[in-house]
């Protein structure tokens, strides 16, 4: 296990400088400008300090958030195909951000987008809780069904709004770029939006890593082993909502990443969340950074990070599918 962390840290040490160095402005000019800003009197905008560094932090936070929330959801729902969006909280956050962009609040209030993302995720979570309580027992099947139904509704509402505004092409372009998942023009504002949510969410998931293992055995077993299933589960849902909200606020929608990455890592390190969660934190950040670096290195401007993640994730998913189907047949 330690060897995986060594490999990952080695890759991280390689990726970080490559990401910070790559750009249109020659490195010596960038470095000099950065040093003047840090130790001199210069107030000039610097690509390293004002763009590349915050973008890297946002990417690492987003990758870690998606990886960890995927691992947690897969354990909680006993399903290696679960993802952070299974409860529909990401759709709620997305809808609120779309509304914020449409009304232009983000132009007047700098932190309206993270507030909207967090509010949307949290309200969706609350709605799911109330709906499942109303329908009877709060069990995993009811949660999944409610989440799927709510996701469908929220996506439909968002789609209807965008269709109604289809003539306002600049607005639709802004929303489309954001929904596709992008790291273009990320600044320290985005770091401020995301970092607190990410740190709290990651800490919460890390803190409950033992309980997540036991919850993966099933509700009744977890109860009998001393885990307060209701309390821990909803706290973990809240942590996942924080992580999802932070990612939505900073980079938009990145699909499949939170589904595929923990699934692959589980094959390498096993299902023990004491190892899986820190591995997802590190690997998630690195994987997303590598994808972003690849996009910029090959100047694939037609694609966003969300597009690439969905394509690569989809391919991996198709490769993994026969194994998952075989396991499903065996367990039947």
């Amino acid at each position: 296990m330690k060897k995986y962390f060594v490999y990952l840290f080695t890759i991280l040490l390689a990726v970080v400088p490559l990401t910070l160095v790559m750009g249109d402005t020659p490195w010596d000019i960038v470095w000099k400008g950065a040093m003047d800003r840090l130790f001199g009197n210069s107030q000039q905008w610097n690509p390293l300090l004002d763009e590349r560094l915050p973008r890297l932090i946002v990417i690492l936070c987003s990758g870690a958030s998606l990886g960890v929330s995927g691992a947690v959801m897969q354990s909680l729902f006993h399903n290696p195909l679960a993802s952070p969006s299974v409860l529909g909280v990401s759709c709620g956050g997305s809808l609120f951000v779309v509304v914020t962009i449409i009304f232009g609040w983000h132009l007047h209030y700098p932190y309206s987008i993270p507030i909207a993302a967090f509010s949307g995720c949290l309200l969706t979570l609350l709605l799911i809780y109330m709906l499942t309580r109303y329908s009877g027992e709060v069990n995993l099947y009811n949660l999944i069904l409610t989440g799927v139904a709510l996701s469908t509704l929220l996506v439909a509402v968002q789609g209807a709004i965008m269709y109604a505004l289809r003539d306002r092409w600049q607005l639709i372009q802004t929303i489309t770029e954001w929904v596709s998942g992008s790291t273009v023009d990320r600044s320290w504002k985005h770091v401020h939006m995301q970092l607190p949510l990410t740190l709290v969410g990651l800490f919460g998931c890390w803190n409950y890593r033992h309980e997540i293992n036991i919850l993966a055995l099933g509700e009744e077993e977890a109860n009998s082993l001393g885990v307060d299933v209701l309390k821990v589960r909803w706290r973990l849902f809240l942590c996942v909502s924080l992580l999802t909200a932070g990612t939505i606020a900073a980079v938009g929608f990145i699909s499949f990443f939170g589904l595929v990455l923990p699934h692959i890592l589980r094959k390498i390190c096993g299902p023990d969340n004491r190892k899986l969660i820190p591995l997802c934190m590190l690997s998630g950040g690195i994987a997303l950074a590598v994808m972003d670096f690849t996009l910029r290195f090959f100047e694939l401007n037609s694609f966003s990070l969300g597009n690439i993640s969905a394509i690569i994730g989809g391919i991996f998913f198709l490769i993994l599918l026969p194994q998952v189907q075989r396991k499903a047949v065996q367990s039947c």
Partner: protein
Amino acid sequence: MAFSPGILYGIIGPNGSGKSTLLKTMTGVWKPTEGKVFWQDEELLKKERTEISKVVSLVPQTPMIHFDFSVEDIVSMGRYPHGKSVGARVDIIEWALRIVDVLHLRHRKITQVSSGERQRVYIARALVTESPVLLLDEPTTNLDIRHKSDIWKLLRMLVDQGKIVVVTNHDLRVTEKFCDEVALLNQGRCVRQGSFGEVLTQDVIEEVFGVSTLEV
């Protein structure tokens, strides 16, 4: 119904009589619709979840497997009520693995062991909780004759050490042989509790099981 240390209890009854339900209710996994569960004159189910688990542990009949944890990981989860560092007390974990004869399987994935071996793994997990009350739901169902005998001997040893052991079992002859006392359930109610002969009279067999004899 009352259970005391030093006695091996068998819970018997027809299908659907509530044997598994009783065990799950005693552990607080399911909330009772009627009645209360007491431990040393205190209401057990009003305690914190971890405190309940320190008192009573349950070996389920057919645990679901969703992820391929190792045998040792599954057993070590039984230490959770005693603190979050579930890897602590390696000596107890090894003892439990050895006593149910799965020590050689410790690093194997739970999905790669037979159903009988899996049953023994879950018994080991219940042992590492060190709870004074052990509830086992059909613990020998998938076991071969040697391991069945070993498990009953283990349960007898635990009873002799002062634990309260309650076992549900369909096999009435095995129950008669190994259990000191039985409780007969029917339609969610305890019909009788006492020695096997006292409980399973001819009238009761006919009334509860709908047969005239226990021989098949």
